[in-house]
């Protein structure tokens, strides 16, 4: 027999779908099937069931031999390397709940850590641009109910956020958008042909890295001013036409991704994109939204925001909060040998950081807290497996539009396994003792 858990939240991408259904065995121990999720979402649930899953902390010696240790020993090692370090880096925080992020931040306060999240290699540039020019935005339900113009810029939701288009952007029928897709015009700006661009009314195949110019050209076109014959590889006629399409909508939105945040010009691209959106609000109603990747990277920025006022690159090492991207960002610190211990939770820098940074982690006292074996766990001295947030424990997560949703626990974690929050609380208690705080 099986029972069905409904309204399950998918702890994978920033789309944070909350309509999944998961069938589990009657004893609540095993997941049988996952409904409504996309393939990558379902995989996340099923992965937790892997029979070869690591269930106890392990340490590796210099020759790379692993040996199991107890959670108590893991707490001790973690607390000690953080307490002993002059400037520990506590990185990740994007695939865990807000409660863990809040406890982790207290550890950071006591040990004088640098706290950084995956925005540092993703939408950190967006956060900087928002500090420069602000951001007019909305919740995803507004898009469902009102939007008749959708722009995807430098992102490919068909692959990275698979259910975004059906739940929120292209297809859904909302209150003022009863015809669904037919009531919307879709513009895709991407140098590549993608599964998203195939759906577009306009696909502007911009020359790689020339986003800033095209954003600016739109601002010129809105005002009806003169453009050169082509900008960023797009003929001016098309630019005028798309500009007109955007202006003539009743409610529009620009979704953008890593294609613009991490290409040449970085935060300046986003600055320009937000300015385009501001301009459009003189003609109709427009919003802009970053397609945040990890399911709760947004939440970590909020938690740090309310506790310390900065959404990433948070430096607590001087005893109070500082923020200076480029100086207090993970890769810059690692490359400059400025940190002397590394703590990773809820992310995989081993896979996503430049090789040079990963090598630095390998050379330092280090701990990786992650349910999976990952490239990061492979280079850290200690690997602490924990329960899957959103599968084996609940907690709050923030969707890409900052809407907080409570994740659901659908099955029990393996016997004796700690959650992120439980592990962090033990570490907090211990670092307080070690620091005499």
């Amino acid at each position, binding site marked *: 027999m099986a029972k069905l858990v409904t309204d399950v939240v998918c702890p994978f991408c920033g789309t944070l779908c909350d309509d999944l259904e998961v069938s589990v065995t009657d004893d609540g121990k095993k997941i049988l099937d996952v409904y409504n999720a996309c393939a990558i979402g379902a995989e996340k649930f099923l992965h937790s069931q892997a029979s070869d899953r690591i269930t106890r902390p392990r340490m590796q010696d210099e020759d790379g031999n692993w040996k199991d240790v107890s959670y108590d020993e893991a707490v001790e090692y973690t607390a000690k390397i953080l307490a002993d370090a002059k400037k520990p880096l506590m990185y990740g925080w994007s695939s865990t709940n807000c409660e863990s992020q809040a406890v982790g931040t207290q550890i950071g306060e006591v040990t004088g850590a640098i706290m950084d999240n995956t925005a540092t290699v993703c939408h950190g540039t967006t956060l900087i641009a928002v500090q420069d020019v602000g951001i007019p935005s909305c919740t995803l339900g507004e898009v469902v109910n009102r939007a008749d113009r959708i722009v995807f810029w430098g992102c490919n939701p068909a692959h990275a956020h698979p259910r975004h288009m059906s*739940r929120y952007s292209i297809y859904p029928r909302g*209150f003022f958008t009863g015809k669904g897709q037919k009531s919307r015009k879709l513009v895709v700006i991407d140098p590549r042909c993608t599964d998203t661009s195939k759906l577009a009314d306009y696909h502007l195949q911009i020359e790689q890295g020339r986003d800033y110019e095209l954003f600016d050209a739109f601002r010129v076109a809105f005002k009806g001013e003169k453009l050169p014959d082509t900008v960023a590889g797009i003929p001016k006629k098309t630019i005028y036409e798309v500009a007109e399409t955007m202006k003539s909508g009743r409610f529009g939105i620009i979704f953008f991704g890593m294609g613009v945040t991490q290409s040449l010009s970085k935060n300046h691209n986003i600055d320009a994109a937000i300015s385009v959106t501001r301009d459009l609000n003189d003609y109709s109603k427009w919003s802009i939204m970053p397609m945040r990747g990890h399911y709760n990277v947004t939440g970590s920025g909020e938690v740090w925001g309310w506790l310390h*006022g900065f959404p990433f690159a948070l430096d607590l090492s001087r005893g109070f909060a500082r923020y200076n991207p480029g100086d207090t960002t993970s890769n810059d610190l690692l490359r400059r040998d400025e940190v002397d211990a590394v703590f990773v939770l809820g992310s995989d820098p081993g896979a996503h950081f430049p090789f040079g940074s990963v090598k630095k982690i390998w050379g330092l006292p280090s701990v990786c807290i992650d349910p999976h074996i990952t490239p990061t766990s492979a280079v850290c001295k200690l690997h602490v497996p924990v329960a899957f947030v959103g599968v084996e424990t609940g907690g709050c997560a923030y969707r890409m539009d900052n809407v907080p949703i409570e994740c659901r626990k659908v099955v029990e974690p393996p016997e004796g396994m700690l959650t992120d929050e439980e592990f962090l609380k033990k570490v907090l208690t211990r670092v307080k003792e070690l620091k005499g705080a």
Partner: protein
Amino acid sequence: MAEYLIRNGFVYDPVLGIDGDKKDIAVKDGKIVETTALSKPTEINAAGMTVMAAGVDVHAHVAGPKVCVGRNFRPEDKLFNSTPQAGIKRMEGGFSVPTTLRTGYNYARMGYGFVMEAAMPPLFARHVHEEIRDTPIIDEAALPVFGNNWFVLEYLKNKEIENTAAYIAWLLRVTKGFGIKNVNPGGTEAWGWGMNCETVNDVVPYFEITPAEIIRGLIEANEYLGLPHCMHVHGNSLGEPGNYTVTLDTLKQAEGYTAKNDFGRDTVLHHTHLQFHSYGGTSYSSKGFESKSKEVMDYVNKQDNITFDLGVVTLDETTTMTADGPFEHHLSHMNHLKWANVDVELETAAGVVPFIYNPKSYIAGAQWAVGIELGLYAKDMMKTYITTDHPNAGPFTRYPRVIKWLMSRAAREHMLEKELKYGDSIRNTCYIGEIDRELTLFEIAQMTRAGPAKVLGLSHMFGSLRPGCEGDVAIYPYNPEAIDPSRDPELIERAFSTAQYLIKGGEMVVKEGDIVSNGSKRTFWVDCTTSENPQVQRDISEKFKRYYSVTEANYEVSGHHYVPNPYVIEVDASQ
């Protein structure tokens, strides 16, 4: 729990009619008690100091999504003002949008014990509660916004008060909210299309209802339920020259209604930050602008069912934030600073824009004058509350400065003569120069504790030192026998900025000016029972299925981690 005996202070308690008499105040088991009830109290020598119940803030934006937007998009707000961890006190940062930690500590330093978060977007209720949870010491509650909510617009269009009320009761329960906030009624929904409602008679696009109908309908629903607080409105056309007529129209909607509740509240409409709504003229220049505080107060003083708060401009660099989305957009076009906006499906919107109230500009000085004038023209100080609409007109940490301006004509003259560049134009276009009145400490106690506690329906707990009230006592280094407000106005500001002691819930949290405890803060919310209403239940399910981006089951705020220490006020509206 510890016992405290606060000896020989000058006590101000408008509820008990105590006006500066030397009295002893006793606290035991978290409550105020008779002095005879103590056995082995810790004595606090309050001789030469002022003793009041802890302050109660009726309206501030201190927790939730728009506050956090303000923090995160203004790193400059934290420049050179962060402070390290010390003792039990955690790190602090921020000026106009302080971190939650600093928010709690700063209220405690000013002797405040309760703060109402003035605008909670229901879909973001979890966020509001997480921030409230992480704000130490002070008790807090939050008002969900209703004035642009689709359920409310639809029910009220059909004059369905009972359904509106049932929906409100449901929403308060699922969001753990406290009462009814009504921001730019109808205008914020219009903002979904980039439009606005500028008068109480402008029709909301598609929903075909007017702000006047929304205001009246929400008053009726509020009294139908008998909620502790009254309908709390931020009227249309905030900040617009000439808007005082809209304000009068807004206030007039309360005519004919009387309060029905079991909480001792006798008013039905609270108008917030009235300063922003009391403007005459046609522009912001000294030639086009005038104060209409007197005209507005002439009306307010004649009503007995209205309260308001001031929203005094403090002439700081600050961060404006409001559910009045179209206003923030408008503002960003005036000052060309960064603009953030969030439209929230089916419910509301919010905007955030930094703002510099420059004392060298005419208009900032005139706005300052309007706010102070409202306080000085008011007749019933139990219905007039000190706020800065934190952080919109200025940070809450300036309340002591506002108190100084209200208590000292000399302090106001100093502003007009020395601090403001356009003092003369301000005298000409505003009333401030003509007013001699200086408020008393008794009146300040009415405006900052007894009055707000009453309108929030919390006078049985806060705002007084009557035995049985919460053990919330503030002791200020202010000797009313030695200080002359006309000669030493600065001493007023200093005293109210730095409580010597704050006892909160019977526990000492500020001792000799230092934070010594993180307290045991509570989140207040209202659990209102109504009779079964299958239609509203159906409407809710329908809207979630079709128009919300989250499921109905995932909407409710539940779980210890959001509201770890609740104080639930139960209201039975099922009869």
